[in-house]
């Protein structure tokens, strides 16, 4: 009996000791080591992750989509954990290969060369359908990260203007970069609880509220953009030219309706894109405008001198010398009217017209027209152009400025300056973002008098007539106004190269109430002619012919 009692006491004592040990251990874990264990636990189970943020779309002025983001998934695995937890690799491989997520070779390579890594991509940009199938398999240590990918339905037609995004959908070129913050919105952040296999079990806290990206409506009209791109590309291929650019502006409000470049690139592709095709030449490439600059020289002379379009100018014998250098016309026009200086594109005539005007006034006028200044949109690499600040004694340079040498402009600046001729002398502000229709347009920059603008417009209209230098710019059912230009290109080490030219055309349509201004610039045409009237003017004619019909401007032409 005694033995039994002793055993009972021993047993109860042992139980008691075990309880004491148990509580001591609990105290140790829950009180002494609490902070350490909790931190270590959190490190393994709690993660901060970004919420899915969808980038805003880019649309044209009529609501056509130019850039759209869609949801895709990146598939990744944790080879280190798979090996540590003794997961059946063969099963995993079989399922992943069957879904075309990876190949057998790739899978084997991961487990031989990257077996100590905890994050290895298996496949990027997987469609949601495939992601659903993969999710249903519930494979251990195989994860899906949702993200967005950008698509550009218009592809090459507008790529250099829109630019593109990187693999994380951040803008890296063009409009995508300039308006990145607006399009991207704000990334949301949340803390989540993960299980042993890395799956999210619970959202613990929303650290940062996400803000969806906003849609961006551009002033671009995709119909005109497509037309201009197609005609420009065809002309460049036909004339074996190096490159080209074209801009169409609404002269009444400065809206950019088309901004075209060739060569271009496919922003949907992943292959390497070279600098030659990615840049927006309408703002990055500057050129000497040549004869297309003459209307501005004429406008300045008409505003600062008392000359009328029917006054006479003697251009004979078709050339004149200034300090051992010669300014010449392609032939001797003799005594011609002031307006014929523009219609026949006489270098001698325009030089004589500006000869008695102070150079300072001319330079200020060039600045007022917006040349040598960047637009308010710094769309990646915009070049403001330059002006030869000649000495007053260098009268030859001053004369050549009258016919567009010694000044370099980009296509957008030139189109804007031509808009002032069609907009009663007011220079419109440039817009790439569509504004509220009801907003009243305020014209601030009057660069020439209304009377002068109208007279220049009339001269430019006659230039596109049957006897003018720009007859190939004429349309069958609407009147236009415009000026051709052909300039020699500057080649480093040579100077002006007699075998390399730029063909330019700048024009307005429909006449006499222009709505559209367009500049076509084609660099270095090598075959089938190189004159602006032969190479660039037909592009203007084809694009404007369709643009006038698309926008319903024929009646204005009739009226």
């Amino acid at each position, binding site marked *: 009996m005694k033995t039994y009692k002793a055993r009972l006491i021993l047993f109860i004592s042992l139980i008691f000791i075990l309880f004491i040990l148990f509580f001591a251990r609990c105290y140790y874990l829950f009180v002494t080591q609490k902070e350490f264990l909790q931190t270590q636990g959190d490190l393994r189970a709690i993660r901060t992750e970004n919420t*899915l943020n969808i980038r805003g779309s880019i649309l044209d002025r009529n609501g056509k989509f130019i850039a759209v983001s*869609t949801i895709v998934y990146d598939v990744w695995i944790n080879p280190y954990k798979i090996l540590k937890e003794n997961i059946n690799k063969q099963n995993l491989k079989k399922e992943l290969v069957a879904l075309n997520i990876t190949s057998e070779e790739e899978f084997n390579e991961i487990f031989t060369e990257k077996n100590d890594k905890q994050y290895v991509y298996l496949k990027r940009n997987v469609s949601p359908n495939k992601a659903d199938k993969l999710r249903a398999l519930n494979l251990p240590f195989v994860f899906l990260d949702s993200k967005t990918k950008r698509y550009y339905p*218009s592809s090459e*037609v507008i790529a250099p203007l829109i630019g593109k995004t990187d693999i994380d959908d951040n803008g890296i070129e063009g409009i995508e970069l300039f308006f990145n913050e607006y399009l991207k919105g704000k990334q949301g952040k949340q803390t989540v609880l993960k299980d042993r296999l890395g799956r*999210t079990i619970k959202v613990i806290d929303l650290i940062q509220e996400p803000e969806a990206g906003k849609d961006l409506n551009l002033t671009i009209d*995709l119909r005109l953009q497509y037309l201009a791109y197609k005609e420009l590309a065809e002309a460049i291929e036909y004339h074996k030219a190096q490159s080209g650019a074209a801009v169409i502006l609404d002269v009444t409000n400065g809206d950019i309706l088309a901004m075209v470049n060739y060569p271009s690139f496919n922003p949907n592709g992943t292959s390497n894109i070279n600098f030659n095709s990615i840049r927006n030449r309408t703002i990055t490439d500057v050129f000497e405008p040549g004869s297309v600059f003459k209307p501005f020289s004429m406008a300045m002379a008409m505003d600062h001198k008392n000359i009328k379009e029917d006054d006479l100018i003697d251009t004979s014998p078709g050339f004149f010398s200034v300090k051992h250098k010669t300014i010449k016309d392609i032939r001797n026009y003799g005594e011609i009217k002031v307006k014929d200086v523009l219609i026949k594109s006489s270098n001698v005539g325009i030089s004589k017209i500006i000869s008695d005007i102070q150079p300072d006034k001319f330079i200020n006028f060039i600045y007022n027209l917006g040349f040598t200044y960047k637009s308010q949109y710094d769309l990646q690499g915009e070049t403001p152009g330059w002006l030869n600040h000649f000495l007053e004694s260098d009268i030859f340079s001053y004369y050549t400025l009258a016919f567009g040498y010694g000044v370099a402009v980009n296509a957008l600046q030139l189109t804007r300056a031509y808009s002032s001729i069609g907009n009663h002398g007011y220079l419109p502000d440039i817009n790439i973002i569509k504004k509220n229709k009801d907003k009243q347009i305020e014209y601030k920059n009057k660069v020439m008098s209304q009377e002068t603008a109208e007279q220049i417009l009339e001269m430019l209209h006659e230039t596109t007539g049957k006897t003018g230098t720009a007859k190939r710019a004429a349309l069958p059912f609407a009147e236009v106004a415009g000026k051709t230009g052909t300039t020699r290109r500057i080649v480093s080490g040579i100077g002006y190269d007699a075998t390399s030219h730029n063909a330019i055309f700048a024009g307005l349509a429909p006449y006499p109430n222009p709505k559209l201004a367009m500049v076509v610039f084609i660099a270095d045409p090598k075959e089938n002619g190189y004159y602006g009237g032969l190479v660039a003017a037909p592009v203007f004619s084809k694009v404007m012919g369709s643009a006038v019909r698309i926008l319903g401007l024929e009646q204005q032409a009739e009226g």
Partner: protein
Amino acid sequence: MDIRNHSLISIILLVILIFISAIAVIYVRQSNRFLFIAIDELSQKKEELYYQRSQLILENETLSSLSRVDMIAKNQLSMIKPPNVTVLN
């Protein structure tokens, strides 16, 4: 006797309250789980709908692209630009 009765009632009440509280905790946890599953399903549904929307937009834009319309008009329908146009006012 009264004091002992009161104590007993208090203890029983306390046990009941503890039990209710425990049930409430279980209920809240379970609701939380269901809600989390619902949120997860809804956010997946949202992603799916967004994906469908973007695919439909892309399909629409591809089918109505001017280059495609131009090609069909020329090659399949043999359409040409009218050479002479008279605008009637």
